[in-house]
């Protein structure tokens, strides 16, 4: 696939790479190339295949087919270490530095400079580290422990380490998602400097403006296939062009809109001016910056936002899991101030959290205790004894209603598939008959067939009068089930529209672009682009 004739030869060439997992094709016939001294953007929605491609390039897994060459030779890394030896370093969102060691120790880990007697020369290590981190614009003391650095600084240390390893291709996976505005600017300028130093960079991101501002070229993936290549011709690559490539598909069968739409009733939950405080233990977490939201009985409100938009924080704040700094939450006309999840639950709010494994399931326990944990009061008598008969009957009722595929109530929940685990968690909340149910990424880690089932369940719940708030970063999902959609970015609501009027382009613009005002449905792309920094 010849692109433009460039001065420098191709450094990395991916040709027709394919990856199958147990019958599922995650990548199909993907090709791209990167040259020294250029920044290639790799874009695509969640599930487009970006992570799979990264894993192949960084040596985590081999491709099922296709060919990769690096610097003209066949490239088949056996492990991430092997990839590094070749000169390809991947910097993931979860940084790989050891927090208790110093910056210098992290940079020289496994290759500390030694002096006479084979002892570590701390002086040389410190001096060399200082020079290395200066290359990425850091002027901190190299003897600082990494745990004392901000996420942005840690990222730069990782980049510096990659450079000191003579890396020729640096792959950055969503590097800006945890950064503040200024930190993003600094990172982008360092990427620009590296480009001038003839380092090749592959920039994987959701943030279209950033990508547009810095990338020379872009490769867009969609549903595991190549959606197209974009090239900077004179000016930055235009956002509408990117969005068109990313989205460009009709709503697929899997996300067919349920035929019946609920008729929204009265406002149950109303949030006004909600703000959260910065947690000193997580100073880089997103804070809510004045969120207003209304949730009505019988409707599904879709909340669309990228990682770091504040969508999960919104759910946690309503649920009493995080502290609120300002703003009001009104439930059924009464102002509430849940200080803990227990308070929120008692008021009739349920939350299916984002990270099922760490926040929802009890892996060591069976299905029955997993199901009833939020309703122990309802399934026990006045003396605190469990009414196990009632508990089991309730579970078998939900088992039918949600078609949970399980062998018995005693079965370990870990033995269930992701979709069935999620149904048990949904049953956990339904057993409480909640007024409001918040579901955060309800189909993450759920296989394709079960996704549609989960969507169907959400629609049924809304029809029964439960106000459902569904948070998701998968746009087809948001479009398929939402009666109304709000978009979030940087801790604010950036737009709102009825589900029937929404489409992926509109939502993507609202989620990914900087627009402080409430935009209309016709937000002109040029405007947005004009704001590119």
């Amino acid at each position: 696939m010849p692109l433009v004739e460039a001065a420098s030869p191709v450094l990395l060439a991916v040709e027709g790479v394919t990856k199958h997992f147990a019958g599922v094709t995650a990548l199909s016939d993907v090709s791209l190339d990167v040259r020294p001294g250029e920044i290639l953007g790799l874009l695509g929605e969640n599930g487009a295949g970006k992570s799979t491609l990264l894993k192949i390039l960084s040596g985590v897994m081999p491709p099922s087919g296709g060919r990769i060459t690096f610097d003209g030779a066949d490239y088949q890394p056996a492990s991430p270490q092997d990839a590094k030896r070749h000169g390809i370093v991947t910097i993931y969102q979860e940084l790989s530095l050891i927090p208790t060691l110093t910056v210098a120790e992290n940079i020289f880990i496994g290759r500390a400079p030694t002096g006479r007697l084979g002892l570590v020369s701390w002086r040389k290590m410190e001096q060399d580290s200082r020079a290395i981190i200066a290359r990425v614009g850091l002027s901190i003391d190299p003897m600082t422990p990494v745990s004392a650095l901000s996420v942005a600084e840690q990222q730069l240390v990782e980049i510096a380490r990659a450079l000191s390893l003579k890396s020729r291709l640096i792959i950055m996976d969503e590097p800006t998602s945890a950064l503040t505005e200024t930190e993003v600017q600094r990172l982008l300028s360092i990427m620009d400097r590296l480009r001038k130093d003839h380092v090749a960079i592959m920039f994987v991101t959701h943030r279209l403006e950033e990508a547009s501002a810095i990338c020379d070229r872009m490769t867009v993936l969609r549903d595991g296939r190549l959606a197209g290549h974009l090239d900077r011709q004179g000016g930055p690559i235009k956002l509408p062009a990117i969005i068109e490539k990313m989205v460009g598909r009709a709503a697929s069968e899997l996300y067919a809109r349920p035929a019946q739409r609920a008729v929204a009733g009265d406002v149950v939950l109303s949030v006004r001016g909600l703000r959260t405080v910065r947690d000193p233990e997580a100073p880089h977490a997103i804070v809510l910056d004045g969120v207003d939201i209304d949730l009505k009985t019988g409707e599904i409100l879709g909340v669309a936002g990228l990682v770091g938009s504040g969508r999960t924080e919104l759910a946690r704040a309503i649920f009493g899991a995080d502290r609120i700094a300002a703003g009001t939450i009104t439930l059924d006309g009464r102002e509430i101030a849940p200080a803990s999840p227990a308070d929120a639950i008692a008021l009739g709010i349920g939350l299916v959290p984002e990270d099922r494994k760490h926040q929802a399931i009890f892996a060591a326990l069976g299905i029955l205790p997993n199901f009833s944990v939020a309703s122990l009061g309802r399934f026990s008598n006045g003396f605190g004894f469990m009414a196990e008969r009632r508990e089991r009957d309730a579970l078998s009722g939900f088992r039918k209603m949600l078609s949970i595929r399980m062998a018995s109530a005693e079965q370990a929940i870990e033995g269930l598939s992701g979709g069935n685990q999620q149904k048990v968690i949904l049953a956990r909340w339904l057993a409480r008959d909640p007024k409001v149910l918040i579901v955060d990424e309800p189909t993450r880690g759920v296989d394709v067939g079960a996704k549609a089932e989960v969507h169907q369940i959400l629609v049924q719940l809304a029809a029964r009068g439960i106000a459902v708030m569904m948070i998701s970063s998968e746009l087809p999902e948001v479009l398929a089930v939402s009666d109304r959609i709000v978009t979030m970015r940087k801790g604010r609501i950036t737009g709102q529209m009825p589900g029937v009027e929404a489409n992926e382009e509109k939502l993507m613009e609202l989620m990914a672009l900087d627009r402080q005002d409430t935009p209309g449905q016709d937000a002109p792309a040029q405007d947005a682009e004009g704001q590119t920094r």
Partner: protein
Amino acid sequence: MSIAEEQNQRGGVTIARLLMSFGPLLFLAALIVVFTVLKPSFMDPINLFNITRQISITGLIALGMTFVILTAGIDLSVGSLLAFCGMVAAVVAKGGTANTLSLSTSGTQGFGWFAALLAAVMVGALAGGVQGFAITRLKVPPFVVTLGGLTVFRGLTLTISNGGPISGFDASMRWFGTGLIGPVPVPALIFATAAILCHIVLRYTRYGRAVYAVGGNAEAARLSGLRVDRILVSVYVIVGFFAGLAAFVLSARLNSSEAVAGIGYELTVISAVVIGGTSLFGGIGSVGGTVVGAALIGVLQNGLQFNNVSSYTQSIVIGLILILAVAFDRWLKSRVRR
């Protein structure tokens, strides 16, 4: 994942769970057979009741420790707390520390066995509550808090007793340590009753469910509306209560509260719980397992003694069994987590 795969996996898990509950029991049965073959008099009812009396003190604390370890916590202070509660019981029973070395039971102005028992369990529960508070509010890990408790309670014991024992209780109190109901020693009956109660609480009450949930995944428990901190404090109150109860029984049995009582008990107690299959990572375990674990250690000690194995060698054997039990636990985990 296909249904077949799910069922397959379930099969593995079920076998693992069976082993988890019956593994130690099989081991115990095997030990009894071996010791009986070596010396048939091992099976004498007198000897068997002897064993039950021996295990009842650490067994009682192990019941409480089961709650703590189910929440992925630990309590290292129980041996010292036992000595402290014993001393408190003695002071209450004798009406002061004055009769320190007197074995005479006449003419004391104490408050009787019931007050002594009440004082022991209340002080134990309170001490546990304070440690639980430090763990949940001050966010100091249980290991550290109870390690501190281990020296603090020992120091308190030595302070109130001036380093010596307080001895000589009246017959009604000594009955709790030396009495028999039919052929059965009273301490064994107390242990059995407590074990049944604990089993019922963990298995059949909402509180028991909450303990497993907090141990299985504290964050998920919080997001499911459980008051995690309260439950954590409660398990340290429970283990403290049992340390107090065990202290009362021990003092009654020895007719004396020693300032050096219970040294090293925390290790025996934790061993009993862990050998019984309760996971140090929380969420998995049972009272039945703990009883079997305590019995296993008791039978091992008694049987080795019976065969004139030195107490030095006994320590080696018990230590090795503990390590094997934890290795087994990890292996089961790896199977379940596959």
